[in-house]
């Protein structure tokens, strides 16, 4: 473990958690692209959410001003992150909570496992949380003989289906109602065998299935959407009420939070609570938001633990261009507008953070070499930047990270040669004339070797013109 060097920003360790895929994006995407059902499910879901989100954002006259404020608040937060975390720690502690610090996934998993063990529990209920997915908490709990129960509907679908999440907000976005029904019939104990695929019926089945768990489980694990340094207040934004169950019913609550989730002041919430639901689920406000500050005697958990997680975030902060990826509030608007995500789906990204934000966040958390294909998993169309409620310039970070990615040797040679040629107009003109020889590559370029055959597999090359523009100009 890398806890020897004080002051050296560190990436997330290998061998734990879910930030690294098993194969490069193009290979994983290739498989997803031929799955007609997946393509249909993703198209339907992303089209639906784009329409809903656009409509409720259109109701807000000061949307751009809110975005600008959010960006500034996050920029300010990152510039003062160490002090804000110390302030948060003091406020939470003063309110009766206990703060733990985890340098990486291994430490965080150990802290949570120890706390559950100390509470004498062999089962925990969980509110959907990206941070705990990132660190592989469920696997760590299971290894310690503790059963984690996911209570978010989509997480439950993923867990019962022995599947992997593919979206930040809706981890089961790749499943349609018919598939969800099949999963419930197969894996949900005591489910009504006459279950239909009506969404309301499926939701009711989840309600029955989890009720007893909510009432009898003594420890819950949550993430956090926001933590206010000034007051020590934590906020969880949700829809179903499973969050309220986990935050209210157990004796012990353990919240695992990425250190970038802190915001300086109570007032700052007025910005994010307007942006997040409209950008995320396309609602004016999500059904439930819970806020708590430490422990409230007689109401809710009487033991509260906050685990502050680094796991590569300090390395992201160290990159002046890339650090704005830490501004992300996990709304997933960038996924929903991304033409690459819509077609390839979330699993192709390998990491728990898919889509455009994942393509900039995962490589930075792990070091670009460990996720080298992700910065290229974008056509740089810019739809993500426009959709982002906190104005993260994802295309610019993608380009920036491409500059850090290891390059194939042949490509690097060709790029250097091209730059040299283009810096010498005479050579450049000669190369243009040579390009005309591309006719030799066969009709419409079909004889080209890899990687250029990637183009001609589905697209003709244009016929080279008889004369370049500069030749025409010279003769004019």
């Amino acid at each position: 473990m890398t806890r020897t060097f004080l002051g050296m920003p560190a990436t997330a360790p290998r061998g734990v958690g879910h930030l690294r895929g098993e194969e490069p994006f193009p290979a994983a995407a290739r498989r997803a692209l031929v799955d007609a059902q997946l393509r249909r499910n993703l198209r339907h879901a992303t089209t639906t959410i784009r329409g809903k989100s656009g409509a409720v954002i259109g109701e807000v006259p000061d949307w751009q001003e809110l975005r600008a404020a959010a960006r500034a608040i996050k920029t300010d937060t990152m510039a003062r992150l160490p002090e804000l975390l110390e302030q948060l720690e003091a406020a939470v502690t003063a309110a009766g909570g206990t703060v733990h610090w985890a340098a990486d996934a291994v430490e965080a998993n150990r802290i949570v496992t120890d706390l559950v063990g100390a509470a004498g529990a062999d089962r925990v209920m969980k509110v959907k949380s990206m941070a705990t997915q990132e660190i592989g908490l469920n696997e760590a709990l299971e290894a310690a003989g503790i059963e984690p129960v996911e209570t978010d509907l989509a997480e439950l679908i993923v867990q019962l289906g022995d599947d992997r999440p593919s979206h930040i907000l809706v981890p089961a976005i790749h499943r349609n109602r018919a598939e969800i029904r099949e999963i419930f019939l197969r894996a949900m104990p005591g489910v009504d065998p006459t279950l239909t695929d009506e969404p309301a019926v499926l939701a009711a089945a989840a309600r029955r299935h989890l009720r007893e768990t909510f009432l009898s489980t003594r420890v819950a694990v949550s993430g956090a959407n926001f933590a206010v340094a000034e007051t020590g207040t934590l906020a969880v934004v949700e829809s179903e009420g499973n969050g309220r169950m986990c935050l209210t019913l157990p004796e012990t609550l353990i919240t695992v939070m990425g250190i970038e989730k802190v915001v300086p002041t109570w007032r700052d919430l007025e910005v994010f609570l307007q942006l997040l639901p409209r950008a995320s689920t396309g609602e004016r406000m999500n059904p439930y938001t819970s806020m708590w500050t430490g422990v409230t005697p007689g109401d809710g958990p009487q033991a509260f633990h906050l685990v502050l997680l680094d796991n590569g975030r300090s390395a992201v902060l160290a990159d002046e261009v890339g650090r704005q990826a830490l501004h992300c509030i996990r709304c997933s608007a960038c996924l929903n507008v991304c033409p690459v995500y819509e077609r390839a789906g979330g699993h192709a990204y390998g990491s728990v953070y898919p889509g455009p934000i994942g393509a900039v966040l995962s490589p930075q958390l792990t070091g670009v070499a460990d996720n080298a294909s992700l910065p290229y998993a974008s056509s740089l169309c810019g739809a993500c930047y426009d959709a982002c409620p906190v104005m993260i310039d994802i295309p610019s970070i993608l380009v920036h990270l491409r500059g850090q990615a290891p390059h194939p040797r042949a490509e690097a040679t060709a790029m250097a040669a091209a730059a040299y040629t283009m810096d010498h107009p005479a050579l450049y003109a000669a190369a243009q004339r040579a390009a005309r020889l591309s006719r030799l590559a066969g009709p419409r370029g079909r004889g080209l070797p890899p990687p250029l055959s990637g183009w001609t597999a589905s697209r003709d090359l244009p016929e080279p013109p008889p004369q370049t523009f500069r030749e025409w100009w010279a003769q004019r």
Partner: protein
Amino acid sequence: MTAREVILGRLRAALGEPRPAPAEVPRDYRPAGTAAADLDLLVDRLTDYRATVHRCAGAGVARIVDAVLGGRQVVVPPGLPGHWLPGTVVAVPDDDLPPERIAAADGVVTAAAVAVAETGTILLDGAPDQGRRIITLLPDVHLCVVRADQVVAAVPDALARVTPHRPLTWISGPSATSDIELNRVEGVHGPRNLHVIIVD
């Protein structure tokens, strides 16, 4: 060396010296106090998210509670105004009731701390007329009484009215999910029926 020291040291190193300048936050959006509360908008927004809205004068609350929950078991927070409850309901006062008992009740009646017109949201802050968080969570019907003077225009107004030092629950319609094909479906773990009585 503790993990705390490691992380704080890493972050300080990541930011380098000189530190990035603190950013000025442009708050050019509509701040608290921009607009007056619009009760009709609140009704529209609540209804849009499948809450049932009732409006009445102060004396009319009990009659509506009777219409919704008459003859049924209703959890009652300790500070609920007595005249809101009709004689027809079976009141179950929350004197630290066990969860199973709360879950077995048919409904709950509470006041609210604030309501947000623009988003159709009611806020509970755990005051005696609203009670512990658990009582508005387990019963399947939540009937919430909002006074007109508790309605504010927008989210910034609401945050300015409540204190972070009490547990806060923001409620916008009945329990719902968007997890199946990203369409909103009402009725998962929280109360499947939300009634809001606006007292003019």
